[in-house]
């Protein structure tokens, strides 16, 4: 039997992060499932000097970097897809505030795989031969950067290929669609690299759009791609990926994706954004009010809603989740 692991967002950030931490999220894509809300809380608690491991940039990294909290970042993609360049991250990179180490999307996924397997290196048949291989923002004066993608000789053929360094982030905040209180999780939509990240990270915090009863997991065990045994904490937070999308739950908030990114293009705009959408928004009700209840309803009217239908019967109400949360708190205090 595993134990119940529900805690609040604020408690998760307090307990599992610190200044200078190697923090992973964004094993999601720029428009999709990322625990954006975790980044907001990192800023509320004033975390800084982060080493961000984001398979892809998301609005979370864009915000964290724009707010000056990121010293190092490693990414496969640093834009916002159709929403264009990520202005906060871009500004931080161009000013030298954030050293951004470039890899491809597959490279980031394989580095997480290598970390999960605890390999000393991962074979690289991509990224070699391009400037990604030897130009390093982390070791800017070295060329070729031996610490980035050195070569390794295949013992079978004698052929030279590359070698990626594996990733083992100190903590990962992983957005999931559904979690039970024990930490079993279901992801709807592409996993991107959340499966590998959940194993590569030294601590795993799930951020779930909804909490379900464990019976849901027993009915659909093949959907439970993150089992409780590797999870340290579960945070319930509706609209956790906002303004990005969560298949089954809500669509991307087109207007906010744009306005947020516009704000992040300047120091002043970022300060405004933090004041309007981050600071003091310290519970779920305040958060949903901040999005706007009409907007919440509009975004929830998604063409993907049918994907959630089989699981709705097990979703716990906010009151039920609050009651469970109170139990955990008592246990911890005891």
């Amino acid at each position, binding site marked *: 039997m595993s134990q119940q692991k529900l805690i609040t967002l604020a408690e998760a950030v307090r307990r599992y992060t610190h200044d200078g931490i190697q923090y992973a999220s964004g094993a999601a894509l720029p428009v999709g499932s990322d625990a954006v809300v975790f980044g907001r809380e990192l800023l509320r608690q004033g975390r800084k000097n982060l080493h961000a491991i984001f398979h892809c940039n998301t609005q979370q990294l864009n915000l964290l970097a724009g707010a000056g909290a990121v010293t190092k970042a490693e990414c496969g993609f640093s834009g916002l897809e159709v929403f264009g360049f990520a202005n906060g991250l871009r500004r931080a990179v161009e000013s030298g505030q954030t050293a951004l180490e470039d890899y491809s999307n597959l490279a980031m996924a394989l580095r997480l795989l290598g970390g999960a397997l605890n390999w000393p290196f991962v074979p690289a*048949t991509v990224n070699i031969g391009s400037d990604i291989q030897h130009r390093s923002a982390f070791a800017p004066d070295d060329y070729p950067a031996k610490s980035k993608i050195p070569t390794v000789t295949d013992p079978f053929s004698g052929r030279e290929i590359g070698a990626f360094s594996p990733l083992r982030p100190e903590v990962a905040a992983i957005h999931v669609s559904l979690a039970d209180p024990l930490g079993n999780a279901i992801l709807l939509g592409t996993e991107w690299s959340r499966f590998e990240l959940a194993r590569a990270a030294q601590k795993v915090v799930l951020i779930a759009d909804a909490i379900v009863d464990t019976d849901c997991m027993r009915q659909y065990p093949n959907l439970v791609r993150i089992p409780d045994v590797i999870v340290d904490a579960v945070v319930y937070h509706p609209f956790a990926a906002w303004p990005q999308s969560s298949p089954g739950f809500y669509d991307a908030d087109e207007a906010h994706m744009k306005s947020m990114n516009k704000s992040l293009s300047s120091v002043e705009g970022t300060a405004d954004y933090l004041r309007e959408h981050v600071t003091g928004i310290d519970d779920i009700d305040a958060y949903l009010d901040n999005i706007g209840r009409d907007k919440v309803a509009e975004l929830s009217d998604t063409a993907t809603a049918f994907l959630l239908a089989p699981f709705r019967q097990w979703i716990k109400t906010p009151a039920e989740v609050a009651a469970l949360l109170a139990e955990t708190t008592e246990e911890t205090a005891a």
Partner: protein
Amino acid sequence: MNAPQTSTQLEQQPYTRQEMMAIATGRELHDGELAIFGVGLSMLAGYFAQAHHAPRLRSMTEGGVYGATPVGGLPWGIECNRISANATSFTNAIDALGFLVASGRCDVGIIGAAQVDKFGNVNTTGIWDGDIGDSYRLPKTRLTGAGGANDIACGAGRVVIMVTHEPKRFADKVSYISSPGYLDGGAARERYGFVGGGPSAIVTTLGILRPDPVTKEFFLDAYYAFSSVEEIRAATGWDLKVSPNVRVVPEPTQEELAALRQVDATGALRKR
């Protein structure tokens, strides 16, 4: 040769330059192939091909989204709900980019470029004022990085590059190779053992460039009904060679336009 189109002209035009580029790209894809699409234009071009002439084109996105077609307009990303709404399978990045692309299993990929050079190398990482230098220095303008395009450029059987045809985007040599074309030309790719064949075409807003079979330098193969050899050479940052058999790309058919606009439900390509 047409003048650049403005939005007021759009209503009178049968199709836009973006639409021509998307259709020309889509024509590069063949029925039955396994194809990977990026986001934006490349996705519209790919799904157009599937809707029009390649019904058995087997398609996916980098996230391992299979069997889907966009609903409600251009998806905002490769994992947007607009494409997640009718998938038959969701897997992951290692599956799509690794098992199917880097492995050499994927026949064709479509990628975009901020900058491309005469050997088909793509830069999407940054713009430097002057040369990037010997090791690494800060870019003047940070772009989006390689994303999955590097993986596609290394592994896909062939690659189609889509890019707006402007002098600043067509450089003799890109300042940073984010995704390899033919590197410094000839057989240079062999040094790295890439399983993919490299770019087979650069499809632009003005025409189509293809690589010389031996030198791998891209030459002008075809221009559009609304463009010309001169316009294209003037918009290219190196001394672009022109095929002795340079031809005019057939204009979009009614069927092609109808299929494209069905995919591009919100008219993203008509607005540009």
